[in-house]
């Protein structure tokens, strides 16, 4: 390699003043070079320290450049340069994409393809990434890559002083012509795991709230069955048993087996891990299924339940998640009415693109100053051990993930209304 200086025409960057005839002062050139060097260093420091993986792909989907984070993410070394990304990405999420096609689509469309989620690999090393692909301005000159530590530096001005034939940079001068795309990758596996754990712990919290109700709903029928069976056996042990009224106790047993069975089914429906898939569901069914496991708790607390549910209002959502969120709203409402009151659950009168359900209580209400905080994780006014403060934050996050909204209106001393809106299914 004879020279490190650019041999090709340098195009001015957009917005750069074009020299109009007069020669720039050499002092200015020196200063401009100094500034460029500084910017280069700044750029390098940012790239090296970003938690995101950065790579540049050529129009065939080959790796032209990657930063240290990207290399560590996919276990890449220098040998990966110039290879197709899908080839070097193992069985991780990146191998599932036809990068050549993606880059072509990007260049044709001229628009960024951001925010795609990918999940792949076998557990436990299964990983979830978010990636975005962005187009870079086409170039018609070559750009050297230099290796400094485990980072490449791009460009002639990088701080690493090359003596002209070093192994690192000179060996890696890339052909950097034509169209390229910038690939940004974030590994969100840990974040996903944390979210899943939170959802799980919230489920447990909700079930904890319900355990009194569950015990009641299982043990009462069980106890009645026990007694009835004992009674039947006792009567049959008589010398001349009067079997006439035993029929009634057999029916009682059947009735109570059904009831316990229903309770168990309800709990199982609830505890079932929520699938990631959205489906079309009837909003009022979701509400009914949630109320089904709470009925007894309502009565126990002297809370009257008013339902104003229109069936046939169809929404797109993950039903388990929505029921979970509804359960949290209703448990909160019950907790706000320790002395009893009225719980009103209603589908909104008008649907539009976002049909909604309103959960209203006549409980303590929330002070205006606290309204903005109730959705914060771990914000709770409940005694330690009773509230984790996660119910609302998880509910809102889950509903928003489904493209919906969760809002609140409240008046201190009067009561509170939560409105959960979900995208309509068309």
């Amino acid at each position: 390699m004879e020279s490190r200086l650019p041999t090709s025409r340098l195009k001015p960057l957009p917005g750069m003043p074009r020299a109009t005839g007069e020669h720039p002062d050499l002092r200015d050139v020196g200063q401009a070079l100094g500034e460029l060097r500084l910017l280069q260093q700044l750029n390098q420091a940012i790239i090296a320290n970003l938690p995101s993986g950065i790579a540049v792909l050529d129009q065939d989907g080959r790796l032209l450049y990657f930063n240290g984070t990207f290399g560590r993410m996919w276990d890449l070394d220098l040998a990966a340069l110039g290879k197709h990304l899908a080839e070097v990405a193992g069985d991780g999420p990146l191998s599932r994409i036809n990068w050549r096609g993606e880059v072509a689509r990007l260049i044709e469309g001229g628009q960024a393809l951001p925010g795609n989620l990918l999940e792949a690999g076998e557990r436990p090393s299964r990983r979830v990434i978010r990636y975005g692909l962005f187009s870079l301005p086409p170039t018609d000159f070559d750009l050297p890559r230099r290796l400094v530590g485990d980072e490449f530096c791009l460009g002639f001005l990088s701080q690493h002083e090359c003596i002209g034939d070093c192994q690192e940079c000179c060996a890696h001068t890339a052909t950097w012509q034509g169209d390229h795309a910038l690939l940004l990758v974030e590994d969100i596996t840990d974040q996903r795991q944390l979210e899943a754990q939170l959802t799980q712990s919230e489920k447990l919290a909700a079930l904890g709230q319900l355990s009194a109700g569950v015990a009641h709903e299982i043990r009462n029928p069980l106890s009645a069955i026990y007694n009835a069976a004992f009674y039947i056996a006792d009567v049959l042990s008589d010398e001349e048993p009067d079997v006439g009224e035993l029929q009634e106790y057999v029916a009682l047993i059947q009735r109570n087996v059904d009831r316990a069975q229903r309770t168990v089914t309800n709990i199982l429906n609830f505890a079932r891990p929520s699938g990631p898939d959205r489906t079309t569901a009837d909003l009022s069914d979701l509400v009914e299924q949630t109320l089904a496991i709470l009925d007894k708790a309502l009565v126990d607390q002297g809370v009257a339940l008013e339902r104003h549910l229109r069936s046939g209002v169809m929404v797109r959502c993950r039903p388990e998640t929505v029921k979970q969120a509804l359960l949290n709203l209703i448990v909160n409402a019950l907790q706000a009415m320790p002395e009893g009151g009225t719980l009103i659950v209603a589908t909104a009168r008008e649907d539009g693109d976002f049909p909604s359900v309103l959960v209203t209580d006549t409980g303590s209400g929330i002070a205006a100053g606290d309204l903005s905080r109730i959705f914060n994780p771990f914000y709770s006014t409940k005694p330690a051990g009773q509230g984790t403060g996660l119910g609302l934050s998880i509910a809102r996050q889950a509903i928003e993930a489904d493209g919906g909204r969760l809002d609140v209106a409240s008046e201190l001393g009067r009561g509170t209304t939560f409105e959960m809106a979900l995208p309509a299914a068309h």
Partner: protein
Amino acid sequence: MADGRVLVVDDEPDHGLTVRAILARDAVAVDFAASPEDALAQACQQTYDVAILDLRMPGRDGLSLMHALRRGQPSLRVIILTAYPSPTTCRTALTEGASAYLEKPCAPEALRAMVASLLAQSSKSP
């Protein structure tokens, strides 16, 4: 078996009715009330030796009902029978004068024996 009168109070009618059926086999007179108010109304008409009270009931819980019944009938012996036992309610019930604290489901023989022994005590020292 000692004679006497028992009041069963439970907001779960199926449960209360089976308890009554079992005890009535011992030729004990047993009344059933499906709510605390109902129980108080019946206690105005009748004197009871033993009351079997559910703990969680709408309106008024078993402990508060125990006190209310005792106001009119101080020698009433009380068995608490609950589907949701807790150390706290157990301690409170026993220190406030309940004779027994049983969990649902409770073996019918045990319940019967408990009632028989309380009826025997009650006939000795009214």
